[in-house]
């Protein structure tokens, strides 16, 4: 039997190829290792919190670490109200912009506006927080006659802005991927372009748009600097829509604001890691669900095409 090496198809020594292949494989698996390590570290550092503080304290509505009150509900509530507010903004404006860019705007306008939306995606969150503090909050205070403009509303508006590029970019891709023939068929049946968008194109791109919105929400939940700078950081449990106009504090902002000042391995330190693992798990659920939607869509497309 003649091996490949003997007849000279493989001029490189196989040992070298083995090494590089192993390195590449190791790099390939690195993502799993990092996710595992992050989860493990958060878990190890947060478990003592459950023991030291106790569930009834953790699930109370008072966050006041100096006196050992570690109720995380106000923080979860703060994240929730701001995320809902941000979604109310990012969903219509993000999907609306995506529809405009993909279906209505002339080509030149689309090619001009898309990079501008992408610039928003690249703006550092600290810059947005800075502008929010200096411009948005003072105006909100005056227009709405509030005691302070540093409120859940300011956070929602800015987080909506942060989520918009994600929503626009992925929704636009999804709309763009709908075959031309779908639209042509609808128009040939006498539907207006408007009817075609709502009854044909958008439903066909449904799962992509859904993914876009979910990933946008995911970004909003995890955003830190902007909310820390514009929401006033008061750990008060929001109970209704009126709390949109008062200061709140999110989970992310709490970690960012307090971690620098706590002693390592203190109870407070462990509780902050516990908030970290809650955030980790939320992002896990959001992202896995969003990607499951994409996988399912790909499969059903393959079925249609085959």
């Amino acid at each position, binding site marked *: 039997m003649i091996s490949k090496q003997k007849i000279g198809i493989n001029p490189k020594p196989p040992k070298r190829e083995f090494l590089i292949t192993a*390195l590449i494989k190791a790099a390939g698996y690195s993502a799993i290792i990092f996710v595992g390590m992050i989860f493990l570290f958060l878990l190890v550092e947060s478990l003592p919190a459950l023991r030291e503080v106790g569930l009834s304290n953790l699930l109370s509505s008072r966050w006041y670490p100096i006196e050992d009150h570690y109720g995380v509900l106000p923080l979860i509530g703060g994240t929730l109200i701001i995320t809902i507010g941000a979604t109310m903004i990012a969903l219509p404006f993000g999907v*609306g912009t995506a529809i405009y860019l993909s279906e209505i705007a002339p080509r030149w306008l689309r090619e001009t506006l898309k990079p501008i939306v992408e610039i928003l995606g690249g703006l550092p969150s600290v810059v947005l927080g800075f502008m929010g503090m*200096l411009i948005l909050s003072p105006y909100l205070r005056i227009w709405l006659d509030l005691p302070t403009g540093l409120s859940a509303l300011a956070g929602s508006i800015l987080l909506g802005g942060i989520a918009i590029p994600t929503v626009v970019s992925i929704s636009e891709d999804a709309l763009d991927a709908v075959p031309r023939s779908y639209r042509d068929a609808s128009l040939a049946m006498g539907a207006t372009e408007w009817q075609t968008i709502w009854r044909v194109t958008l439903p066909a791109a449904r799962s992509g748009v859904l993914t876009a919105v979910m990933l946008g929400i995911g970004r909003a939940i995890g955003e830190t600097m902007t909310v820390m700078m514009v929401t006033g950081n008061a750990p008060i449990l929001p109970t209704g829509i009126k709390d949109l106009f008062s200061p709140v504090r999110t989970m992310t902002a709490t*970690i*960012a604001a307090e971690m620098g000042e706590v002693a390592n391995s203190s109870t407070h330190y462990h509780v902050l890691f516990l908030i970290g693992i809650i955030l980790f798990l939320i992002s896990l659920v959001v992202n896995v669900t969003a990607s499951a939607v994409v996988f399912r869509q790909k499969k059903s497309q393959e079925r249609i095409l085959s």
Partner: protein
Amino acid sequence: MTMKLSARQYKQRLGFSLLTLMTFLTIIPIMGVVIYIIYLGLPAINLEFLTGFPREGMREGGILPAIIGTFYLTLGTAIFAVPLGIGSAIYLSEYAPDNKATQLIRIAIINLAGIPSVVYGLFGLGLFVLFLGFGTSILAGSLTLSIMTLPVIISTTEEALRAVPQSFRTVSMSLGATKWQTIRRIVLPQALPGILTGVILGLERAAGETAPILFTVAAFFLPRLPNSPLDATMALPYHLYVISTQVPGMPIKIQYGTALVLLAFVLSMNLVATAIRSRARARRQW
């Protein structure tokens, strides 16, 4: 003769106008923010601001340590994230079989991309600063930012690699090249512009992030340049946070000046990435 529009045509006009309005309501604030920062920040920019050290409790002088710090952090992130990210993308595009393990890698990457930046900060604090004993240092910060940047680099690089036609690989292999030779000499050079775009976009994100460096690297005020990877450093995003929230009586001009320098740093990376991408698209022959 006037054309009479039917109800549904009216509806369409109304709907189109509404969507146009929404788009411009989205676009105008973005441009407004950028223009406003340039307009108010430009007067602060001079040689002393860019090359001097902060004085008088940061209320005067320059921001050189923050600029250098962000430069080092970006460089450090590149050193770790680029080889690892490209290696991982090569594995996924060229080697990985279509099985459960590969699917798990993909889910892990999606997860990494979604983890909040402040959680990366916690992880960096726990692993690099405390457990491995790097202290608050450029090394710890760069490693933290690298892991955060990894998913961006992996997914854009993989996309670039997959865009190289399969026939290129087949031809190379049939000429007797090994798999790795084919990747190194044929696939990677063809995918280079796409890879560069992805790498720069990833690093852009790292350069602008604040939360992951809060507890891993950032110094509130450090009026000297770092001399080793184990030194703490100031950094532009953190500096902007500090001077806009923590220092009372901060001159507004310096705040906008710092915001402008950070914005210029990040947006110029964005522009370079976009330029590479469009140039490569124009020149692509397949």
